[in-house]
């Protein structure tokens, strides 16, 4: 192998990559935050007493879990507008797709977590006069989050990585900028290596902190 890597192409264009990183973050953080909140509500629907609420939410969850994310993003960009008559920007389509996708996965995590907390916990909370909402907030959710933290961490990482798929609908995020640069300068090795490295630097601190948090929460065991 006599290829001589030249990383100056990366340092010369760092501002472009940085701009891409910023867009990646703008997809990642909102879709995980809104997706988790939506997932919690969706989990309530999955555990609802009424059959049709359970059924509808189940269909939603399965649709998102059993189709490729790539299709979902493209669908929200090209197909969804035909349905509603409003063209979404690439960013809006990507955000919508990833958020809904995240909510479907998160709802399963919440649902499993809530069901794994013994019924006695809800009763212990109700017995001192708490409302169901108070019991959920003060007693059930903290335990679900603790128990499900590894699953939530995984999801967060997955979403960060999935956000790179938004490049196919021309969202100017990190992957898009990387592909653009590498085809402009014919330096895929340096640029794609740099892009992978940036993803790693973006994601790893979160994994690390989640591990620390897990230990901290495990102290009551």
């Amino acid at each position, binding site marked *: 192998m006599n290829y001589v890597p030249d990383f100056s192409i990366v340092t010369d264009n760092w501002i472009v990559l940085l701009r891409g990183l910023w867009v990646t973050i703008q997809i990642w953080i909102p879709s995980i935050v809104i997706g988790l909140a939506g997932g919690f509500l969706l989990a309530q629907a999955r555990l609802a007493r009424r059959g049709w609420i359970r059924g509808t939410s189940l269909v939603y969850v399965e649709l998102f879990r059993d189709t490729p994310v790539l299709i979902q993003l493209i669908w929200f960009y090209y197909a969804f507008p035909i349905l509603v008559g409003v063209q979404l920007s690439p960013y809006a389509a990507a955000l919508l797709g990833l958020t809904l996708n995240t909510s479907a996965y998160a709802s399963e995590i919440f649902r499993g977590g809530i069901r794994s907390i013994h019924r006695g916990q809800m*009763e212990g*909370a109700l*017995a*001192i*006069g708490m*409302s169901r909402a108070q019991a959920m907030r003060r007693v059930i959710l*903290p335990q679900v989050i603790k128990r499900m933290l590894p699953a939530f961490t995984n999801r967060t990482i997955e979403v960060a990585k999935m956000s790179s798929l938004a490049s196919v609908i021309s969202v100017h995020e990190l992957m898009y900028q990387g592909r653009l640069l590498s085809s402009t300068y014919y330096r895929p090795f340096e640029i794609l290596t740099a892009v992978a490295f940036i993803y790693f630097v973006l994601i790893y601190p979160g994994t690390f902190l989640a591990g620390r948090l897990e230990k901290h929460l495990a102290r*009551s065991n």
Partner: protein
Amino acid sequence: MTGKPILEVKGLHKRFGDHHVLKGIDFTVEPGERVAIIGGSGSGKSTFLRCMNFMETLSEGEIWLDGTRIGVEKKGTVTYPEKQLCQVRERLGMVFQQFNLFPHMSVLNNVMEGLVTVQGKSKPEARRIAEAELAKVGLSEKHDAWPGRLSGGQQQRVAIARALSMQPEILLFDEPTSSLDPELVGEVLRVIKQLAEEGRTMLLVTHELGFAYHFATKVIFLAEGVFHEVGTPDEILKHPKQARTQDFLRRFGEFAF
């Protein structure tokens, strides 16, 4: 006893699907009464107790607390607004067989939780009350412990302190010692006895017949979904009239009074 009942149950039925567990129960409790409920396993003792604070919804019947009917009747159907049930549960403290402490909170926070979240008390005030209740059950030195690190007997005493912290008018105990190792039963029964001496109104489901004999002002034998025999401890535990009660007691063998 003659006084105004604090708790009244009228025509209580409870079904789980086709399974008719409670078949028409009428019952009153006066302030200061201590009622022991005994009966075979699966006879509906827990269900009865859990209907009192609406952990189970009644299939039929009425519950009156301090002269007020619980629930709102509209066009023949009764609904139970959550807000009202919360108030009822605040007034009826419950202690469970499995303790049901919150494992992610320290002992002190377990006892403070209802004071802060339900009663809206300030942290310092809640802390003062919680410390006093924990002292009462002999667990002052365990404030900062996690519930999971305590023995079963200690956990149950924390659960009692948590129930007491809300200043309930009636205490409901559902087999509070049944999941404890034998050597830990005494410490919990001592706390309950102390509450009896304070004159608290209590309903206790138990298999500790010896304890029930000394504790109770009234004993109820629950069988076939009804109060099969009701009377003083002496009448029910020593001189039962009904064959079924006699049978039940015989199966328990000798118990020390």
